[in-house]
């Protein structure tokens, strides 16, 4: 049965059902319901909740739990995610799985608490040192957020990598009917975990330190081979562009829902447009843009930022079609009428 849940809380239920047994976090709006809910619920499932003294401490606690082979999650918002970046790089360097939920607000700096998407670069390019990427999932409904949190845990374990679920503040705060997703039994290997073995197997060592150039290079090449597999198997995109559509509107998260309303309005005015909604922001669905149906003559990217995902759209299109951008920032949200009027002005 469907129940009405707030995005931030629905994510927690999905995480616990997916086997999350440790959560470490530090408060920041607009994601405070996540640590609050985990504090109330996780112990009932035999899990551990700690409110750390800082974001930096929280992400390093995640490292510890992940190293012990426990399904672990943390969450934060824009400036808090910035503080966690060092730890994320170490998690990648040590091949440790975890789920990081980022409920973004407006920036730069402390910015504001209203929703924004100006952390696309932060999510997909990261701020930690070294050669790395994280799989990043961007849901546009609370049901999809629940489904993707479950998927994030599986992908993290399968490929031994941190995985990010990126929401704008609206998805965290809003309520929508949703259902706990069914959980498939996932069979992942965690024989690498440093969880104590009473001398029954060789010692497991978990570290990101590798002082021998050849060794570190080999590890990096091996990790990028894993990234190739992720690119091959894990790309998700919701492509609703149909034959006859003149314009493809590209948006993710809540703005994709606003774009759907704009597309309806354009239809009433005789303009055919369709939505392309990347669900994985990394790996990005570049091929979708090479394979857009031939009726599409223009691409319009809509983001709650000054334009970040547009760079990936341009890489995908490789100059094939003209690209325009419409965005609002600072916590301001575009209305469907605005998007429709902008699209109309482009053609």
């Amino acid at each position: 049965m469907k129940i009405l849940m707030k995005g931030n809380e629905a994510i927690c239920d999905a995480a616990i059902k997916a086997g999350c047994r440790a959560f470490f976090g530090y408060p920041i709006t607009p994601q405070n319901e996540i640590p609050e809910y985990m504090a109330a619920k996780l112990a009932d499932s035999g899990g551990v909740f700690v409110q750390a003294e800082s974001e930096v401490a929280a992400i390093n606690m995640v490292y510890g739990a992940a190293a012990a082979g426990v399904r672990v999650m943390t969450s934060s918002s824009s400036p808090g995610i910035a503080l966690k970046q060092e730890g994320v790089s170490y998690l990648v360097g040590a091949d440790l799985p975890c789920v990081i939920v980022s409920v973004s607000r407006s920036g730069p700096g402390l910015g504001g608490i209203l929703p924004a998407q100006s952390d696309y670069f932060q999510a997909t390019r990261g701020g930690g040192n070294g050669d790395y990427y994280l799989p990043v999932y961007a849901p546009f409904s609370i049901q999809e957020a629940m489904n993707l949190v479950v998927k994030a845990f599986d992908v993290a374990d399968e490929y031994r990598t941190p995985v990010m679920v990126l929401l704008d503040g609206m998805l965290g705060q809003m309520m929508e009917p949703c259902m706990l997703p069914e959980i498939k039994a996932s069979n992942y290997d965690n024989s690498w975990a440093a969880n104590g073995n009473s001398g029954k197997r060789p010692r497991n060592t978990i570290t990101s330190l590798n002082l021998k150039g050849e060794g570190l290079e080999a590890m990096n090449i091996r990790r990028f081979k894993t990234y190739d597999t992720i690119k091959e198997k894990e790309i998700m995109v919701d492509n609703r562009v149909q034959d006859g559509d003149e314009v493809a509107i590209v948006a993710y998260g809540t703005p994709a829902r606003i774009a759907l309303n704009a597309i309806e309005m354009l239809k009433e005015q005789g303009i055919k447009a369709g939505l392309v909604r990347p669900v994985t922001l990394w790996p990005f669905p570049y091929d979708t843009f090479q394979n857009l149906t031939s009726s599409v003559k223009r691409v319009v990217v809509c983001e709650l930022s000054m334009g970040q995902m547009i760079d990936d759209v341009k890489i995908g299109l490789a100059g094939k079609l003209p690209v325009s951008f419409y965005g609002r920032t600072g916590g301001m949200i575009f209305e469907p009428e605005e998007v429709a009027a902008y699209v109309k002005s482009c053609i």
Partner: protein
Amino acid sequence: MATKIIFSGFGGQGVLTLGQLVADIALNQGKEVTWMPSYGAEMRGGTANCSVIISDSVIGSPIVLNNIDILLAMNIPSVTKFFDKIKPNGNAFINSSIVTPNYMPTSESVNITAIDASAIAQKANNARGANMVMLTGFLKQTNLFTIDEIEAALQRRFKAKPELVRPNMDAIKLGLE
């Protein structure tokens, strides 16, 4: 066809709860629904508000900024902020205990229902139930839900404290008289 509703009042008047109650009723009717709070840095004494969209089909944007179908306003700042954004032939349910005649808006295109909610709630010995009394606006002016559906939603909400259902229903019934 979507119905866009704003619930607005002082923090503490129960407008967010009221929005959730209406959203829960809609969910139980099998409708699509979204509930979105304003979570900006609101001042003490300012407005708290949430928007609810009820629809027969999948809801796109969950945000209500304009073209409001129904405004439920429990204080003067709520009227100031949202009244002009109600669409023609829309409804305004206004708490006339607080929004005194001097501040009561007039309009040729909006159907205004003044509800003496705080006074009625006092009379029902449930001063905190003014938000519930405001629901009588929906019962009188719309077909969105019935009083029985409100009661069922209250029973779901107060599963752990069933004794709270009756005083709230009493306030609503007094409001209907």
